[in-house]
């Protein structure tokens, strides 16, 4: 029986987030029925504070409101703090997104067993003496485009939506003793910013996530 395997790969998701919707592990017998056993195909989806509405648009979801957080932020955020700058946060506001890979194939392969002609002297210096990159074990990621023409308008290999509405520095609110009352990442003293970033498809994101096609293969090995 031919099957296509779909693995859900989730990074940094707490155990409590798993549900009955997770797919069950396959045993060895079930795996043996899978064609193309040299590799697997997987789907990867990560939603960050986002969901799709009925029109297919990506919209923020489960973000804190001022009702939920008294001192709070009316949007989803992430914030960075840098070493030596203790009172300020670099805050990305109105932050939500989607990252999906659709049917990416993972294989164990070996690199080409002969030189490519692209390794010049600087390249050889990079690897050092005694290292041979030819015929080396590697992990390979690729997409099956065997049924697609080079000019076929297919863009369903990856989907990315990213909304970073505003980027601004926010400072901790502290008492005279230096104790932090409200950390900068929860404040909104600068409600606007000229800097923002959005990645989407269609007029004003009406097409949902941006869509991408990747031909060829990516291999990774260590040295």
């Amino acid at each position, binding site marked *: 029986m031919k099957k296509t395997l779909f693995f859900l790969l989730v990074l940094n998701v707490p155990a409590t987030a798993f549900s009955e919707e997770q797919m069950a592990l396959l045993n060895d017998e079930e795996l043996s029925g899978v064609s193309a056993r040299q590799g697997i195909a997987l789907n*990867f989806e990560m939603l960050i504070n986002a969901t799709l509405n009925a029109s297919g648009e990506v919209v923020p979801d489960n973000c804190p409101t001022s009702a939920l957080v008294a001192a709070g932020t009316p949007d989803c955020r992430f914030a960075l703090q840098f070493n030596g700058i203790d009172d300020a946060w670099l805050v990305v506001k109105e932050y939500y997104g989607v990252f999906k890979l659709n049917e990416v194939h993972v294989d164990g392969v070996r690199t080409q067993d002969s030189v490519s002609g692209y*390794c010049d002297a600087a*390249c050889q210096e990079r690897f050092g003496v005694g290292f041979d990159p030819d015929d080396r074990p590697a992990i390979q990621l690729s997409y099956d485009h065997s049924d697609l023409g*080079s000019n076929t308008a297919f863009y369903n290999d990856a989907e990315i939506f990213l909304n970073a509405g505003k980027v601004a520095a926010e400072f901790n609110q502290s008492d005279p003793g230096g104790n932090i009352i409200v950390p900068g990442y929860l404040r909104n003293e*600068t409600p606007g*910013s000229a*800097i923002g970033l959005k990645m989407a498809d269609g007029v004003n994101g009406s097409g949902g996530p941006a869509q991408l096609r990747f031909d060829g293969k990516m291999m990774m090995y260590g040295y």
Partner: protein
Amino acid sequence: MRMTHHRKRIVCNAVHSVLFGWLACLPLPGMAALEQMDEAAMSNVSGAGLAFVWEDFRWLTKPTSYFEQVGSGTDPESTFQRGDLRWYGINVSAKEAGTTWTETGSSMDACASQGYGGLGCPRGGTISHFAAHDNPYVLRVMDYSGNGSGANQIGNGVVTWGGDTSTSKTVLELLAPTSQEDYRFSFWGEIEAGKGGPAADYGLLKTQTIIQGSAAGSVLQFFQSTEAGNPNFAFLYKSHLQGDFRFSANQVNGKDSDTLGTPVQFDAFEGMHFRNVDAFLPLGHLFYQAFTIDVPKDASGNDITNGNFVLALNEIPDNPAVYRRHYSLAVADSIHAGYQTARAALLANTYGATPSVTVPDNYFQTHGYSRWGDWFPCQGVGCPAVPTSMTVTDGTGAIIAQRNTFNDTSDGIFFSKCSGCTDFDAFAYTMTAVDVRAGQSQYNCPGGTECSGDGYNPRGTGSRFYKQNDSCKPSGGTGLNCGYGGGYSISAGSAYTNTSKVNPQAFFDAASAGTQTLPVIRTGVANLGDSRAEGLLINSFKFTSLGAQY
């Protein structure tokens, strides 16, 4: 197939995943590029890494998918508002024949023409060796250190902010291949103008950008800043872009659109072209200069809490060891030393030139350059005798260097009309050679007056216009008195004609106002020639964001 939602309110961890995903799956073409580093000379090496190989690679973004980079409005008078500036259809593909941004049914529309050197077609096929298995992208951790050379020595160039030339520091680095197959990077853009104002003021500017070439040798490094009092996260980036560039706006009839977000087909020839570009921009150096992020400070060094943040490449410290490596002068320090070294660097990369001093290797790590075209013929100190012909050939008769003709499309900077459009009138003076060294003859008379006394003989018969069959024989043996490029016969052929226009000399009070009959070259392409900027040195750079109350 839609999976269940998984969310985290503490999103910073998820950010790591996103970043890793991008890093692992994408080639980071924008980060690619840059200077090949002599690593044996740069480091005492210890470290290992991960290699990323891309073969038969192509990255296509759907032509309706975009990035936009405008946040909230910055002030009530701003005409730019959120989402008014977008880049669509980011593409990384091969150089050969391909497709446009428009599609018919489920197929991309084929390009009608490759334009000049492939710059007429935005999307191509797959790249065989975007990153070969034996010259991959590399992500690794390395220890770099200076070789302990004295403060008055350049050594291997590595020095801390405090002037230490031997301390070892650990660096996380992403390196592009040192050599890779040429490829095509392109996107189309959209700018909304006059939004929010009267309807008659509203409009869309759609443009196309195509870059073809190699991005080999990129360097992106992360480490802890060595600046005193600023033990911050720091990074540097060295950008080396090589190839051809085109920017255009003309759309093909029948495949055009003035509708927001609708892909169009751009003419294969129209626009601004740059051929044979080699541009290196070093933004930071191990370890005395790097980007860090901070908040603005007042004159007393206190935080300015206006919500803005600063991305800054620090000023180089007042330290002799840093100065020696940063400037990497080829001659003894003097008021002219920077110019003389830059001049030698220019000649070191110019056909037939014989620089009188040798430029230290480290100079090409700390100084950027932007070279457009092949820079032939070289003229001036250190250059060979200027040929009086259009080309120079080797013993077999093969052309090894060539002047740009007035309508050259293979080299240098040129503008082209769109397909089927009428020719335009190009008007130019022949280039004046200016020698600015003290005590040397200087030519600075665009009106052509008072030049003969300095030995300047305008090209041709009484005019300085670039036109048909105009020849100049240099006197005195220098060639400078024919203008830049020396003495040779210019021929615009049948493209030469006359027209009635205002003489630009009128703006210098060197000709009467009003129209007059002027010689022009009626052409579809106007080549401006080549350009060189050498010795680009960045002592500091600061970007401050603009917060807004909207």
